């Protein structure tokens, strides 16, 4: 029982120390920040090692899959970047990583993030299925074209209609930024609420 109680108290004290930053930056807050970074780095190392053990070391030593030595060597070559004379060695695995990742992303990006999105923007503007769905489709169509037009920088805006349409594109983006900001506020508040729930609930048992 002592373990969970100790963990809760430690969490509560660390949370309060982090909150102290709101008043003023102080050494205790900096200590907690470094503890967090240290724990995160240590956890990343342990998860990384588990991956190397499961996907390389064990198959090589117990199943004789010696070809897995190649990615291990490439991985070790990455660390050469920390040396002055052999820094160039790390460029080979890095170029392999970039090439493989680019190929992997390109495989799916055309369909997932271009064709599908363009298709979704080609909506049928009709009020046959009701006013609001029709209005929604109209907003999508006009909004998409207006924003795209905003980013055409090579025209000279000879006609006032061009300027107005560009302004509409800016307004559409402003609405989108507003929605993002509103969601950002909700997200940040949730983080505070989560900590207060922990303090009032798990630590002080004030939430029933």
């Amino acid at each position, binding site marked *: 029982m002592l373990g969970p109680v100790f963990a809760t108290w430690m969490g509560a004290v660390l949370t309060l120390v982090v909150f102290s930053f709101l008043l003023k930056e102080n050494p205790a807050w900096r200590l907690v920040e470094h503890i967090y970074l240290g724990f995160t780095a240590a956890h990343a190392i342990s998860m990384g090692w588990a991956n190397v053990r499961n996907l390389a070391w064990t198959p090589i030593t117990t199943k004789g899959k010696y070809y897995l030595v190649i990615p291990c060597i490439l991985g070790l070559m990455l660390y050469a970047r920390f040396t002055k004379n052999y820094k160039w060695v790390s460029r080979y695995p890095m170029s392999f990583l970039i090439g493989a990742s680019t190929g*992997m992303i390109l*495989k799916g990006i055309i369909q997932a993030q271009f064709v599908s999105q363009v298709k979704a923007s080609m909506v049928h503007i009709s009020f046959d299925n009701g006013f609001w769905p029709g209005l929604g489709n109209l907003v999508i169509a006009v909004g998409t074209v207006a924003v795209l037009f905003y980013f055409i920088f090579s025209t000279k805006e000879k006609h006032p209609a061009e300027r107005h349409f560009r302004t509409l594109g800016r307004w559409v983006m402003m609405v989108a930024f507003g929605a993002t900001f509103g969601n950002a506020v909700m997200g940040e508040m949730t983080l*505070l609420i989560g900590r207060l729930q922990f303090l009032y609930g798990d630590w002080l048992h004030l939430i029933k």
Partner: protein
Amino acid sequence: MSIWQRLLNIDRRIVYLFLFAFISLPLLVPIGLPLTISPETRAIYDYIEKLPEGSVVVVSFDYSPSSYSEQHPQAVAVMNHLMRKPGIKIILVAFWEQGPIMAEEILRTIDTHGKEYGKDFVHLGYVAGGETAMSAFAADIHKTFPVDYRKNPIDSLPMMADIRSAKDISLLISIAAGSPGVPEFARQIQGPYKVPFAAGLVAISVPITMPYMQSGQMFGLMAGLRGAAEYEQLLNMKGKGSIGMDAISFSHIVVLAFILIANVAYLANRKGGAK
């Protein structure tokens, strides 16, 4: 200094104090403000409700402690629903290195409703590589995860005998805080394998993810803590999402009030300056 100038120079600690008070109050004395359920959240609930026995659901824990408050309640709600459904097989996986901690915390505390580890649900843990790892997972689960998070060889888990690739997955749910997340799943799993896909998201990434809903690549999403609260309401369970909703509403009132005060003070101050 005029009152408007004073209002424009409110000490930030006063703002913190107001927020602290207005969030604490509904947490300690819940009001139970009504909450409507969005169609995006309901879509996930309905989809899981209609899953036939033997369906395989992958829940990907792609978040870290920094978004714990928003996303853990989402994961808890979805996992509760999946555990309640008889005959559903659940695979827990993570493409974020801190994801397995979250998954294990849920498995430690959740009522499994008689489901057994290895037979009805497994926790495969984390694999490095982000999008590349997702692609490998979709192509061959056994090769990507030779052992599960609890160090059992994957071939020793009865449930995994017939589940080999993304082709065997009935539903993919990612509780995603960032990258890798929705775009990567859309590119590597939903698109190529046509796996039905839904997500639990941090609130800030909802607007940029909505195009995936519009295009039909995602059929449902939970937006931040509100999404979790909605899902809890659908399940008739009282979780951290529901408890936090009153506080969310109160905090928004405070933020709106300060935005209003600042704008009124700014305009009044400018008018005064012009004179």
